[in-house]
């Protein structure tokens, strides 16, 4: 988890604590640390770290806090962003997918449909992955490599 993720967690925790009325006017964060400590079954010192954005509770504590605040643990940890529009796949990556997939399917002219389906599916998956180009190419290579291993498995099945 990054510092920014810790901070956004802290913001949501404070928001949820305030929304459920667990405020304390004297506390710098405006929420009652003692109550949070009871919810999380953790010391007040540790809870102050959560509130400052210096750390995240472990999974069990998130569940406990979320249940007490009547929010979902997923929201508390990650928030609910608007679904992002998938980024378009760039020409170079698409070219790489087509090139590598074509090589893998070239011995099977009868499987044009399968080739098209495979490319479409891989392009969809790759589009949703945020990773550097080198890693994307590695992923494409692994996926395309699975065509050969699938063929071998099929052949050995028929040979038996």
């Amino acid at each position, binding site marked *: 988890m990054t510092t920014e993720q810790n901070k956004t967690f802290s913001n949501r925790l404070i928001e949820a604590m305030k929304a459920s009325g667990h405020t304390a006017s004297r506390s710098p964060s405006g929420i009652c640390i003692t109550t949070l400590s009871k919810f999380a079954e953790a010391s007040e010192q540790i809870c102050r770290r959560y509130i400052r954005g210096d750390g995240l509770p472990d999974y069990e504590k998130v*569940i406990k806090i979320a249940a007490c605040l009547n929010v979902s643990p*997923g929201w508390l940890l*990650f928030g609910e962003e608007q679904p992002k529009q998938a980024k378009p796949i760039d020409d170079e990556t698409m070219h790489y997918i087509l090139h590598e997939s074509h090589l893998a399917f070239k011995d099977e002219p009868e499987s044009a449909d399968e080739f098209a389906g*495979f490319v479409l599916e891989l392009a969809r*998956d790759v589009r949703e*992955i945020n990773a550097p180009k080198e890693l994307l190419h590695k992923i494409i290579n*692994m*996926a395309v490599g699975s065509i050969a*291993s699938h063929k071998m498995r099929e052949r050995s099945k028929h040979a038996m």
Partner: protein
Amino acid sequence: MDLNDKKVTLHPQAEAFLFQHYRVMNKIFHDVLGHLEIDYMGIALLTEADELLFFSSKKSIEFHLIQHKLWPFDACYHPEQFLKKPTLKWMRV
């Protein structure tokens, strides 16, 4: 089984496994997707050494969980969830 002793770690090849069996796993998932409004399916496997592996119909989900080290925060991958408790609603995961 004593769940307190169970410490799940990520299999060193977890990321590669997501894509190494791409074609065959996609064929299997395609048989299920679309039925009963299922639009996503993931399988988590635990090795004898308590190392976690994934197969998924939407690999970007597990890929990002691995890349950003977020998988320990997902209830699906906690021993007490997958060994003991019944089905959880999506909101509780």
